[in-house]
């Protein structure tokens, strides 16, 4: 379990509405600091600059999907250690297993409950090694 409490979150998501909801949920209810990235191509640069505790990735995005971005992160030394949580509308067990096999810290299925989202992230955070 990480020693510091979960605070800085970077969220890569192309849908602006969902960006806002997640930001409101995490900032207002979770009292966290959130950086949102709309264009997955710029995600790695933003993450490097923002230095989050945890990264949330959408699965389906135009240009580059979540898993591809995840692999790219794993190839980038500055960000490869960061825990990654997927938010996905794909929710079948086999896909979840696939994500875990890739080294994802967790997966939250869409639609998520904004009320519960901060708690869900903290529970994943606390279960990290």
């Amino acid at each position: 379990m990480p020693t510091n409490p979960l605070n800085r979150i970077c969220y890569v998501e192309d849908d602006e509405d969902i960006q806002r909801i997640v930001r409101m949920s995490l900032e207002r209810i979770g009292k966290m600091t959130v950086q949102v990235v709309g264009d997955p191509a710029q995600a790695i640069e933003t993450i490097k600059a923002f230095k989050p505790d945890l990264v949330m990735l959408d699965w389906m995005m135009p240009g580059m999907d979540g898993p591809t971005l995840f692999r790219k992160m794993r190839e980038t030394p500055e960000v490869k250690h960061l825990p990654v949580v997927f938010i996905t509308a794909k929710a079948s067990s086999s896909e979840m297993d696939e994500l875990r096999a890739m080294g994802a810290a967790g997966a939250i299925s869409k639609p998520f409950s904004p009320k519960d989202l901060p708690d869900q992230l903290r529970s994943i955070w606390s279960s990290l090694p």
Partner: protein
Amino acid sequence: MDHSKDAAVLDLVSTGESAAAAPPVRELADRRKVFGDQVDLLFRHSPTGVLISIVVGGIATYELWGDDTRDLISLWCVLMVLVGAARHLLYRAYYKRSDDNYSNWLRWFAIGAFGMGAVWGFAGAVFFPAHTDAQQVFLSFLLAGMVAGGIPVYSAVWWVYALYGIAIIAPFTYILATFGSPQFVELAVLVPMFLAVNISIAHRLSRVFADGFRLRHAYAHLGQDHSMLNTQLQDQIEELLQAQREIEASGRKLALFSERAPIAVFEVDRNATVLEMNPSAENTFGYSSTELIGRSMIRMLIPSDEPVLNGEWWQSFVRNARPEAGLKVRCRRRDAVELVCEFSLTPLVNDVGELISVITQCQDITQQLEAERLKKEFTSTLSHELRTPLTSIIGSLQLINTGMLGELDTEVSELTSIAERNGQRLLDLINDLLDIDKIESGKLQTYPEPLSLDELVRESLVLNRAFADRFGVRMVMLGTPPSMTVYADKKRLIQVMTNLMSNASKFSPEGGTVEVQLELVDRMARVSVMDRGSGIPPEFRSRIFGRFAQADSAATRQKGGTGLGLAICKRLVELMGGRIAFADREGGGTTFFFELPLTDRAAVATR
């Protein structure tokens, strides 16, 4: 076919082929019939014999008549006529006979012949001494003539002739021997010799007759056999023709099957060279049969980089000669378009295990695969495209309803709650539809593991308490659940529990209690969820586990639900090897229960 008949035919054929080794034909004759023929011949000549005897007897009477011998001659004449009449009566009786007891008839005939002989013998013995020389010569010739003339009449059975001859000659010989004159004594020696020669001739004649009869019967028998053989051969030929007609008919049927079949069919040899193909094969691959017959099916139709149905694969297939089915193989059409075909290969093997040819059936499944892919993509897109806006809608409403943006006006709050609830309902519907789709297309994967069912039931109780609260319903565990392990998918089992508990909550009266029970029934773990609702209407019972099954649409609008819940529960429970059912409760209400097989620890370990 009758095998004994086969064998019989073979026997007859071999008789015909190797006559040298077979017994003489006359042995085939029936002895009884030959004997009958001999007796018959005797009787046929009987009238002639009698007639001749009477005529000659008449002449003798005329010649020998004299005053001193008148009485004797008269007596002799009477004897002759009596014997002749008796023999004639016997003859008439023979031709009117009703039995074929030939030895009996022969006995009577022999007595008759002996009698006739004896009458002549009487003549020789009585008249010879009493007459003149000339008359004696006449009598001697007469007797010799009667003995010789008897040969054709009696020799059908030689001993009948012998009896007849002896009856004539014996008294005559005795008279000759005792007459006194040395010439007569010499004659007495010669006469029996003459008789013996005649008997031996008769004996030979009787054998000739018998052989003749035997041959006649044997040939009749052969003729019968021959006609029987012919009938059998004809039957066999008819059977063969029938079999041929049947084979031709089934051949035509098979040809029609393959000709009209929508599936491409090839017959190929052990080198995969095409021997025959049907019109469907021409249509599927765009080659005419003349272009493919005589060429390798594999080289012509299948890209060399395919993992199955390449040269090496074919070699091992031919070696094993085992049928293969459901091989999905990429194929090249004549116009270079790529197809995916499903192949089934059936090797035809003869009775010594040699591969004769391979019947290859293949179906173009390119479009089917494409349709499956599109459907999968559609479902996945639908799921994503519906969930994304719903995420925003429900998320926004939920954030508003938490009150974190400030207290809401009561009416506004009411409306946003309605919006959130119905958004959730829409989401449930989408999830249920996707579930049903996956289950029915066999794509739903369950991840079974050994589960503590009592823990799972407690957990579902906690998870659904909030939902029950909304309907003012209490949810309680009945008794202490025994500890039980089942082999099931945890997430899917919780889905089933949630469905049953939320149904029970929805249909309970406000302030009511939903009871949950876990027990062991007939070595199955049974989980029951019991309500005190209004029960299941009779007309709804049969389709309660069907899709979109709801008893009362008004209640649905009021309480929510997609009508898919129980259909999903039933399929999920069945996927986990259990069953689901319901029963009325004593005192009103309904019990829904499902049963799962208990885990055998050993079975789990080997899984």
